[in-house]
């Protein structure tokens, strides 16, 4: 509680200091420098828009200038129409006008990635440029220029207005960053499959990232129109979009300070070159080299600065930090856990948490899963084992919705989910984890668990979810964890959502023997703690014995045995199928 208050005081002080700084700059700088600072802040707003789509969500967008152009065009048009409210009203409207285009470009992004997306967005930028060049900006032919409203007429006042817009955008994006939407953008960057499996709609996340990005870019276009009074299509040249993308990478525009540095660099480099009489083209060379340099580091300037500051801060309070945040390590379930489990949102049905009948998966002429039936009763942990290539992974993919072509019925707590997309199945109470490491590294442990839970969770919930499973502090970044730990964290996240059933795909891979044993005990306690049933896919038969009440054996896509582990693992044909040559030898 006290920490929250000191944080509050600190951010308050920083906020007041920054506001004072802006005012000081506006009042104290020579008029020319105010203009330069204004340009820097407006580019900063545009870079923040790139920070959303490219920085957070990891999608290439080479058409930000086109969005800005729509914003500026709208501003000019609103001015010509004489819409009341001045720039205060026009700017948000300009942002909104860019949103449909953002959504339009977001649609191909649902299927196109990487270089495909780069080409499409570049093509889009070129197209908007062609259309804008053919139809000049409203008012320019009649010498009507965008006028600033009362209170913003001087450059100094307008500079403050730009600072305010930049701050609002920065703070709003920071707030969004803390929400599930913001986390979903960063999760998207890591893995679309994991994002969907956590119950988040991938199309929704992508489209929202493009929409928000277009809105912010549109705002910057409106600011530019207000700054220059007259804009032409050349202000929004597609080449500029390319350069801006390079700058965004170079500075790390997903942090507001990075965006500001980028804006300032753009202006400062041009100014320096001018002062020293060097051709302006060199600035693009500098940005190109800077971007390549940032890419070799894997992080832009803002990340580097944050890392540096963080390192200093940690060095300064190294001891209190380790003492102040003890890692919760409890062997068993905490005392209050069963009380919590008494009111799970999940299953109340008497039937199975997960029921699969006649599930069939075909890849071409190969039948990977052949009419498999499987039941995970509520409140139980069921194992699914089988040799490599038995069809376990295909079965998990089909159940969780990644193979829409599969046949068969799947019910979760009595409700049919086959036919639903992945994220809808997840929301219906069917969670899964992955064999591959797909935990988004851009999040902290707490952010990830909140994102995965899809429900309000307190710090106590988080501590409890981690207890006995994985020894990490909630503040730490996931990127600092090893793969085995990340995987356990994924398990904790899936269960924190209190699903009807959690399908865990080899959670023990990469764990040592002792850790594996502890995981087995923890899994056995899951139904009591969370009210969730578990379908455990695992190679480690000891773990299965320890955790599961029943086990299903799969071979060549068919169920060959089913029953309590102790009994199933003694059957001859199971041993033959599972251990194969080892038995024969």
């Amino acid at each position, binding site marked *: 509680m006290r920490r929250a208050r000191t944080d509050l005081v600190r*951010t308050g002080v920083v906020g007041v200091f920054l506001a004072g700084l802006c005012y000081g700059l506006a009042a104290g700088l020579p*008029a020319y420098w105010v203009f330069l600072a204004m340009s820097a802040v407006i580019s900063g707003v545009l870079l923040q828009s790139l920070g959303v789509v490219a920085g957070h969500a990891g999608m290439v967008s080479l058409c930000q200038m086109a969005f800005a152009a729509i914003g500026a065009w709208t501003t000019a048009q609103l001015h010509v129409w004489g819409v009341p409210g001045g720039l205060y009203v026009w700017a948000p409207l300009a942002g909104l006008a860019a949103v449909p285009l953002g959504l339009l470009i977001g649609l191909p992004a649902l299927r196109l990635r990487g270089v495909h997306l780069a080409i499409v967005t570049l093509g889009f930028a070129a197209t908007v440029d062609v259309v804008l060049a053919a139809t000049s900006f409203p008012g320019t032919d009649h010498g009507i220029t965008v006028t600033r409203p009362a209170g913003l007429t001087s450059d100094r006042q307008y500079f403050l207005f730009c600072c305010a817009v930049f701050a609002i955008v920065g703070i709003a994006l920071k707030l969004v960053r803390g929400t599930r939407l913001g986390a979903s953008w960063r999760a998207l960057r890591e893995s679309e499959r994991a994002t969907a499996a956590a119950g988040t709609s991938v199309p929704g996340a992508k489209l929202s990232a493009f929409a928000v990005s277009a809105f912010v870019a549109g705002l910057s276009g409106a600011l530019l129109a207000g700054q220059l009074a007259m804009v*032409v*299509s050349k202000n929004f040249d597609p080449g500029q979009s390319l350069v801006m993308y390079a700058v965004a990478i170079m500075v790390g525009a997903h942090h507001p300070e990075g965006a500001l540095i980028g804006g300032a660099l753009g202006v400062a480099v041009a100014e320096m070159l001018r002062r020293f009489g060097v051709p302006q083209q060199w600035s693009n060379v500098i940005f190109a080299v800077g971007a390549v340099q940032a890419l070799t580091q894997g992080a832009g300037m803002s990340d580097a600065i944050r890392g540096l500051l963080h390192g200093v801060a940690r060095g300064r309070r190294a001891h209190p930090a380790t003492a102040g945040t003890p890692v919760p390590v409890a062997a068993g379930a905490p005392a209050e856990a069963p009380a919590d489990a008494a009111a799970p949102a999940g299953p109340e049905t008497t039937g199975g948490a997960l029921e699969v009948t006649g599930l069939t998966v075909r890849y071409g002429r190969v039948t990977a899963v052949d009419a498999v039936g499987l039941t995970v009763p509520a409140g139980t942990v069921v194992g699914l084992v089988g040799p490599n290539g038995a069809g376990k992974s295909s079965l998990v993919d089909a159940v969780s919705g990644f193979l829409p072509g599969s046949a068969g019925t799947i019910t979760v707590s009595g409700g049919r989910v086959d036919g639903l997309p992945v994220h809808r199945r997840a929301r219906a109470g069917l969670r899964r984890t992955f064999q591959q490491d797909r935990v988004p590294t851009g999040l902290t442990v707490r952010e990830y668990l909140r994102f995965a839970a899809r429900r309000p969770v307190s710090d106590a919930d988080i501590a409890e979810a981690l207890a006995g499973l994985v020894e990490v502090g909630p503040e730490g970044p996931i990127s600092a964890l090893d793969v085995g730990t990340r995987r356990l964290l994924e398990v904790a996240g899936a269960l924190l959502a209190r699903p009807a059933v959690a399908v865990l795909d080899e959670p023990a891979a990469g764990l040592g023997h002792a850790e594996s044993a502890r995981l087995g005990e923890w899994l056995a306690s899951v139904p009591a703690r969370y009210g969730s049933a578990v379908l455990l896919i695992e190679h480690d038969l000891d773990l299965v014995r320890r955790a599961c009440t029943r086990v299903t054996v799969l071979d060549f896509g068919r169920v060959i045995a089913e029953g309590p582990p102790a009994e199933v693992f003694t059957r001859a044909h199971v041993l033959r199928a599972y251990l194969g040559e080892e038995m024969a030898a």
Partner: protein
Amino acid sequence: MTASKAAVALLAAIALTSGCGLSEDSPAASASGSSGDSGTIKIGSVNALSGPVTFPDSSSAAKAVFDRVNAQGGINGREIEYIVTDDKGDPAAAAQAARDLVTNQGVVALAGSASLVDCAVNAPFYTQSGIVSVQGTGVDPTCFSSAAISPVNAGPYLNTAINLYYASEVLKRDKVCSFLAILGNTNDAYGQAIASWTKLTGKTPVVDDRTVKPDSDPTPFVLRAKKEGCQAVLYNGTEPMAIAWMKAVKQQNITGIDWLMTTAPYTDAVAKALGTDGDGMYANAEFEPFTQADSSALADWRSLMTEKNVPLTSFGQGGYLAATHLVDTLRSIQGPITRESVAKAFKELKPIESPLTGTPYEFGDAAGHMSNKAGKIVQLEGGQWRVVTPDWVRYPGTLG
């Protein structure tokens, strides 16, 4: 949430601060620069010096003029300091350059600017700052429709009108076509030029194609001109575009069409690059054609440019002319030379005759200026430019 509190704090602080103080800067009052009678007289210009299309000659020529004035004792003993800035064809850089000149350096006027974006981006700012610009090469339509700017050149729109007029009235071609590359907000200005010609002559272009792009292959357009039976074709391409156009004409072996270009390709580089491939191509010189070595009208310009090592180009003529007009006007000012007195002098300017142009240079109080309304037609032959019309072709109509 701490961030939201920070947001509130920051917004409140900004709202508080922006409310008080920060009264309006009067751009005219602030940094009025070399006011009074001491120090240098600062003159500025905004130019495309780097980037895809550059016009370095205009400011170089203007500098040559100012250097000569300084060598001869300056204006009433005060030297002229000529500040040349680069906008790299980028509107943002042009805006930055203009602010630097006007608010930071405190120039009293602009002269000899040659840029694709300067007028469009900075015209409102010049008006607001009460400064005048004697544009060396104006391209954008705003150059010709701002109270603060009066270019010495004719500009692509009047060029277009003169070319159409020359094709239909002097060459007596019935089927006149126009192929235009529309860059930026030039569509309406070209439209007005064509409409003005139509109004004057009662004729309409057989083809009015405005879809040429700088990087498109000209072959399909050249073929279209042939297919539609054009007898004279107007094209507004820049140097590389015009070269590509004429090469396509040559490749397709098209004959019997007169090709009329604006001023842009009237350069030695084009003549050299095309060689005999450009035979018959017309261009419209906005000033006394610079390729005429023996023209007495050009004697002073030619000797000055040669002395100062400035390439002999049409842009150089524009810069020379702009600087000369400015110097004449500065000399006429009684009392201190400030931004206000210079602006006043230009607003009250009597038309200035010059042997380099067909019509006198004007400024005055008009809302827009297009005083150079004449051209001389030149033609390429064997890699050499040749003057076809020894007399000025004055355009009798008005644009817009």
